[in-house]
């Protein structure tokens, strides 16, 4: 087990290194364009050259990469030229806001989709199963921005129940969090529910469940004691990997509801060519994604003893 965990962690570090090289190549391969982005389109060549000289852009590519990666590891993300502050000063609060949004999304997503998925998978082909399947196809077919539009039309403009933007201008208000979390919930719910359903349905056809039923065990006990334990292993991985999707989803939702989170920051930085913010956001996003993937892998082998440690 220790060797397995060490291997997964080493692989995670390698992935991060590879991703950082890829990002560096996409964004910093030509120093000229970096200078244009930082100094603006009206900077003269002379100004650009002075800036490039001062920031070490005339060094060879590999040297620049190591300097860049070293700065990253020590938390030096550079200066945002749009917000005129160090990148770290805006990145961490924004990330915290997104974490709050993500927490509430998952707080609803996990219980609801697991319960519905298990109920649907328990009796495959039943009316409840068909209904849940159709609802989940429907919700996964509606893109986040569309369900945001529909929900706003109903709850904001129609019924006047909820605020339409989530800027949190007068401090934190839970009401403003409901719609963004609901949109994320709706889009991700179908997938998790379907995966849970498939896993549950598969377990229900196994011989040991048949044995349990045939020996006269109450149905409740068959489900709770025998089926659920194995049926919930696969959804665990699915939910962990859902975090990767959530990082995409928050970009749309935060933009739509003007929520001051990480996704909105990345989008704003991209639209304004704020290169150091883009780099920092992308690295953080990939780190979160890779870390949860590693955790999911380790957790899966831990939960499922049939898997060999390799």
């Amino acid at each position: 087990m220790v060797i397995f965990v060490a291997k997964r962690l080493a692989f995670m570090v390698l992935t991060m290194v590879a991703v950082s090289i890829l990002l560096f190549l996409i964004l910093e391969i030509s120093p000229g364009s970096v200078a244009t982005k930082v100094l603006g389109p009206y900077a003269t060549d002379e100004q650009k050259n002075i800036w490039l000289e001062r920031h070490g852009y005339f060094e060879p590519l590999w040297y620049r990469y190591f300097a860049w990666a070293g700065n990253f590891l020590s938390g030096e993300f550079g200066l945002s030229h749009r917000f005129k502050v160090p990148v770290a000063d805006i990145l961490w609060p924004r990330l915290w806001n997104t974490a709050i949004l993500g927490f509430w999304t998952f707080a609803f997503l996990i219980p609801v989709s697991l319960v519905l998925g298990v109920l649907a998978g328990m009796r495959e082909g039943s009316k409840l199963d068909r209904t849940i399947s159709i609802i989940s196809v429907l919700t996964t077919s509606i893109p986040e921005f569309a369900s945001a539009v529909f929900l706003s039309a109903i709850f904001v403009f129609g019924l006047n129940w909820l605020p339409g933007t989530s800027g949190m201008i007068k401090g934190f208000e839970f009401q403003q969090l409901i719609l963004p979390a609901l949109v994320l919930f709706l889009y991700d719910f179908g997938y998790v529910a379907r995966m849970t359903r498939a896993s549950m349905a598969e377990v229900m056809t196994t011989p040991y469940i048949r044995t349990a039923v045939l020996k006269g065990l109450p149905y409740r006990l068959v489900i709770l004691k025998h089926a659920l334990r194995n049926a919930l292993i696969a959804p665990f991985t699915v939910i962990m990997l859902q975090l990767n999707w959530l990082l995409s989803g928050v970009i749309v939702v935060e933009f739509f509801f003007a929520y001051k989170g990480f996704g909105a920051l990345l989008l704003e930085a991209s639209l304004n060519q704020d290169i150091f913010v883009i780099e920092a956001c992308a690295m953080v996003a990939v780190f979160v994604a890779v870390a949860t993937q590693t955790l999911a892998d380790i957790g899966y082998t831990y939960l499922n003893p049939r898997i060999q440690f390799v």
Partner: protein
Amino acid sequence: MSDIANNAHGASLLRAIGLLRESWIGMIGAGLISFWVLVALFAPLLAPHDPLAILQPFAKPGALHVGTGSTLWLGTDNLGRDILSRIIWGSRTVLIYAPLATFCAYAVGIFMGLAAGYHRGWWDMVLSRIGDIILSFPVLVLYIIVIATFGASGLNIVIAITFASAPGIMRLVRGLTLDLRNRDYVAASHTRGESAFFIMLVEILPNARGPLIVDACVRLGYVIITIGVLGFLGLGLPPPDPDWGGMVNEGRSMAMIFPHMTIIPCVAISSLVLGFNLLADGLREVSLRD
């Protein structure tokens, strides 16, 4: 010999389409898709106005055109362009770029998957690791970086989608190939002295088509969502050409007073994606039956 094989393939495909009639979910999906395909094909005949012509701004659905007295069934947008015509022409944009991007992703993904699954060893190692690295990006983050760096254009959207989806297709094809490469007919073809290229394309690929077709339907739905999302975020096709995601973005600030500007394109895109997802469900159901 090959004639018989072709006939068998043709027959099974026809049979699958015939069976689809038994799945009402699949039929609804096929119906939604055919609706939009027909709309896209006959766009010049169906659209009552030029999608770029400026008629009168902020008309509500069902309002009358001041000049000609004709009905503006779905209203107009903030610049006064007819929304119905823009939706109809916008279906062309989606139905050209989404299949094109999916096709490119499949072309790349299938070759990578076949090579990794058939040759195994080093090929597999290198291709799978590259795939893992690309898949570790949250997809939208990757799209935003690529498109913000290289600019928003149809070609760049296709390239970005190919780049981000090919690894997923590769994984699927690789898995199928690993299973199929041990079949007797592959061994027979090997003994005949066929090249690896021939075996991969003629012996393995056609036999892996079932799961690939279902996956393609689901993936087309995702690609349509992606193109819509990019348009919505302002990273899609440059204006003024009609694009459903872009229409939502343009109408967003006026959603409170003129909700039709955003709701209508959202309904359009959701129904098309729903069509592909239902068709995929139907195909899956039918293929599991026999």
